[in-house]
């Protein structure tokens, strides 16, 4: 039996905030799931399986939270599966769910990802001393800052490029009611004068710490035909991994990321991503990663990504808008952040992105990465049903 095309018919998010004091983790994920079901005009009984993802259990200190979330997600009597691939988990969770539908294992799958950073200490969770290394890594920022410096050195990019990305994403977030940061008074000067946390990364070039969840309802052709609103069709999806440390690893442009993108474009029949894609939601937790991923994902030649940023190409009105939702720089419920990228790409091609809609978007990429830039997951969604 051949694979069937997969459609996104429901998208749900919580309003991402620093601390959701009014709900538990179960309440948070259920809120996103209820919204995704409402978008799809489906009920819990229509769901055949649940696939859930989050970042390391160490963050909230709740071991295997999926055990206690089964009933909140309507999974009683149904298969439930937990996915983990560090920061890329939201993306890989959606891909596992999509593959279950494509393979005709389940008809309609609910997939959910979350993080409740207010109940967590991610920086501590990511800075655990290990005996064979000097205890020097201060959270994700401390880990990634040297690689940002290597990018700046390698390409000769001006110091200001990171601030341009941060200012753009924070401005875009003002158009997204679900975004965590709504900094109406932010100016480019303020971004550029914010404190250096991990030199060369400044405070305003860093993602916030958020509570939030995201949910998607995925189904096949028959489900898509019944959906009340336009679906987003999955044209390609892939994951790749590589070791955290190996001789010759390119931290600035990891091979696994390049291979993952190439696989997705091949599946979707995309030969010139810069021209053929209308919007990109990429995982940019520190602003400099936008030019870095522009190169890694084939939107720019090596060393040229920062020039697209400077030329305004990735602005909302540029010819390759990146993170019209405001991106990870404006909302970062870690485990959900990858799924939010996938969801926002789907909203764009469904024409349902509201104020941050890119007019006429027909093809969009959702991208996530995690670990020491070692796990990658991406999908390419379109408004047309794939013809293969």
């Amino acid at each position, binding site marked *: 039996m051949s694979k069937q095309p997969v459609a996104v018919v429901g998208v749900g998010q919580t309003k991402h905030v620093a601390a959701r*004091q*009014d709900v538990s983790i179960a309440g948070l994920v259920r809120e996103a799931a209820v919204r995704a079901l409402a978008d799809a005009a489906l009920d819990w009984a229509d769901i055949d399986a649940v696939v859930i993802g989050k970042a390391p259990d160490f963050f909230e*200190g709740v071991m295997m939270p999926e055990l206690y979330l089964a009933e909140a997600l309507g999974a009683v009597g149904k298969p439930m599966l937990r996915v983990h691939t560090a920061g890329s988990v939201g993306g890989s969770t959606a891909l596992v769910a999509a593959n279950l539908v494509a393979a005709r294992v389940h008809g309609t799958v609910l997939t959910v990802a979350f993080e409740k950073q207010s109940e967590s*200490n991610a*920086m*501590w969770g990511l*800075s*655990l*001393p*290990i*005996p*064979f*290394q*000097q*205890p*020097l*890594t*201060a*959270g994700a920022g*401390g880990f990634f*800052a*040297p*690689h*940002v*410096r*290597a990018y700046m*050195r390698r390409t000769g990019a001006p110091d200001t490029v990171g601030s341009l990305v941060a200012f753009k994403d924070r401005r875009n977030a003002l158009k997204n009611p679900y975004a965590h940061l709504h900094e109406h008074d932010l100016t480019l000067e303020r971004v550029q004068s914010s*404190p*250096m*946390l*991990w*030199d*060369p*990364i400044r405070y305003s070039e860093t993602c916030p710490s958020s509570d939030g969840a995201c949910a998607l309802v995925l189904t096949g052709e028959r489900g898509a035909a019944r959906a009340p609103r336009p679906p987003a069709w999955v044209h390609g999806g892939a994951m790749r991994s590589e*070791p955290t*440390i*190996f*001789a*010759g690893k390119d*931290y600035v442009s990891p091979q696994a990321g390049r291979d993952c993108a190439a696989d997705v474009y091949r599946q979707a029949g995309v030969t010139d991503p810069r021209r053929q894609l209308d919007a990109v939601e990429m995982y940019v937790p520190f602003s400099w990663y936008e030019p870095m991923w522009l190169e890694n994902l084939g939107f720019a030649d090596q060393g040229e990504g920062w020039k697209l940023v400077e030329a305004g190409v990735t602005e909302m009105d540029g010819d390759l808008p990146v993170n019209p939702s405001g991106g990870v720089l404006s909302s970062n419920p870690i485990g959900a952040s990858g799924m939010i990228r996938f969801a926002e790409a789907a909203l764009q091609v469904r024409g349902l992105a509201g104020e941050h809609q890119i007019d006429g978007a027909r093809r969009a990429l959702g991208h996530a990465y995690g670990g020491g830039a070692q796990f990658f997951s991406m999908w390419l969604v379109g408004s047309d049903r794939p013809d293969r």
Partner: protein
Amino acid sequence: MTTAAELLAGIPELAGAEPVTRVTIPARLEYTYSPGSAQARFLTALPEKRLLAERCPQCTRVYVPPRGACPTCGIATPEQVELPHTGTVTTFCIVNIAAKGLDVEVPYCYAYVLLDGAHVGLHARIGETPYADVRIGQRVEAVWDDRRLGPSLASISHFRPTGEPDADPESYRRWM
């Protein structure tokens, strides 16, 4: 949205009770680490101020600290290589905020030091120089901490500039 107080209001026995919305439960982590033979050799050589690496018989890359196997070739790396205490800064950042539980004073310079003869960078602190002077390509040497010599990388206090001319970028370009 129903608040906790509204929910409690429906239960007479709980009239006037303060709603519990959050409790903090401290988490602590202690574990016993079994380094295996490759890392055990590396760790036990540190008190003697020796840096033991391993070379992969297939791709000839030299790993420090050694892991006993090559992550690229997936084979055992039995050949021991002793490395000098000098190397090149391949990249770095200046950390200005303290991570909870990390015993380092901020700001500090966190760098990847490619020891001469190695093909992966060692995580290290750079000291004895103004941070504004630290640069990619800078030549540095290990400074051992005689009070903390033991089977841990804390045996090396930090790396400091040697004063040599910067390394040729071609010598480290592929290993940064």
